[in-house]
């Protein structure tokens, strides 16, 4: 009844529609952000009990990944070095730096150093390091340029979408097996003109066929 609804009421429906659209937009944006790979824990860089700098150890000291992560190419788990491993050098170098106290304590008592876990998959997803590093997938693909990090941070989403992306097109990301632990090396596909051919050849010769159905990762 128009005595009830003022003239302005006619714009009401239009306004409502506009508001709904805006609201929906915000909601969608939120959901997308929360559910899509972008929002995993990218950027997570907790403070560790010992301020270990990968940059220093790799670039200055020139250690290979496998010096500390010695089982990465044998086992599904990439092991964190034992305090003993650290002490191989640090019994001499910085032998009594206060920063290394936890490591020294661990080495003699056997109590572990509680490193904060950064890169991880859900309990129902089984990732196997050996399977990847032995077949041309470099650390950098999932961990980013750890060799340049003073504080390790989570750089890739490590969501299912992220994994699948690579499993669908391995050729684009494979490296020459000897470059796997050289985080600065280029991917085969990026090696100039015949890069793509090299990559394709690798995939063919090595019979690279990453699983794309559940059984690959979910058990």
């Amino acid at each position, binding site marked *: *009844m*128009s*005595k009830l*609804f*003022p003239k302005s*009421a006619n714009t*009401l*429906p239009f306004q409502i529609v506009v508001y709904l659209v805006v609201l929906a937009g915000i909601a969608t944006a939120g959901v997308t952000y929360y559910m899509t790979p972008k929002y995993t824990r990218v950027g997570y860089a907790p403070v560790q009990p010992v301020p270990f700098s990968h940059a220093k150890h790799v670039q200055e000291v020139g250690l290979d990944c496998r010096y500390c992560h010695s089982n990465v190419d044998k086992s599904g788990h990439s092991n964190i070095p034992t305090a003993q491993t650290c002490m191989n050098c640090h019994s001499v170098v910085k032998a009594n730096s206060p920063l290394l106290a936890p490591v020294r304590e661990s080495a003699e008592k056997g109590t572990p150093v509680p490193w904060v876990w950064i890169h991880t998959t859900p309990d129902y997803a089984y990732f196997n390091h050996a399977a990847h590093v032995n077949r041309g997938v470099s650390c950098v693909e999932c961990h980013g340029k750890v060799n340049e990090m003073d504080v390790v941070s989570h750089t890739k989403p490590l969501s299912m979408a992220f994994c699948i992306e690579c499993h669908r097109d391995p050729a684009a990301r494979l490296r020459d097996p000897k470059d796997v632990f050289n985080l600065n090396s280029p991917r085969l596909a990026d090696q100039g003109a015949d890069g793509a051919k090299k990559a394709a050849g690798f995939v063919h010769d090595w019979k690279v066929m990453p699983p*794309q*159905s559940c059984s690959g990762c979910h058990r």
Partner: protein
Amino acid sequence: MAVQPYGLIATFKTAPDLYHAAEQVRDAGYRHWDCITPFPVHGLDKAMGLKRSIVPRISLAGGITGFITGMTMIWWTGQIDYPLIVGGKPLFSPMFAFPVSYELTILFTAFATIGGMLLLNGLPRHYHPVLKYDHIVRGMDDTFFIVIEARDPRFNVANTKALLEKIGGASVTELEP
């Protein structure tokens, strides 16, 4: 206030009265006028000289969109984006894609139909001069009206009023905008 009124409104008691009156207004050549009835009076469209509604075309468009949406979605998700072997069935087949596409066809048709109807009728429109008329209440109940709008080129308070009374319209009143 000496503003141009929205138009003139005349009251008719029964459907037949309205019907015949409408025919005459039509013949008088008015274009911006309307009948207010409590229910759809059969044949009144013809009496008013209205063309057939175009809602069906909108519905058809909606339906086609729906069907295509369904098929494309199922084909893209199943065959292109993430092909999975399920029960040894093909990655895409119009056969198993049909039920869903079919439902979407109907859903989209419904949306289009109603959307189209409201659009064509310019609804929702809660404020309208006609609704300010005191006796309009009966219009939803058991009385019939004819409204001739001022914006009609042939509109002229005196002549139009005369016409309305001539064709049997009772209590002809000006509607303020």
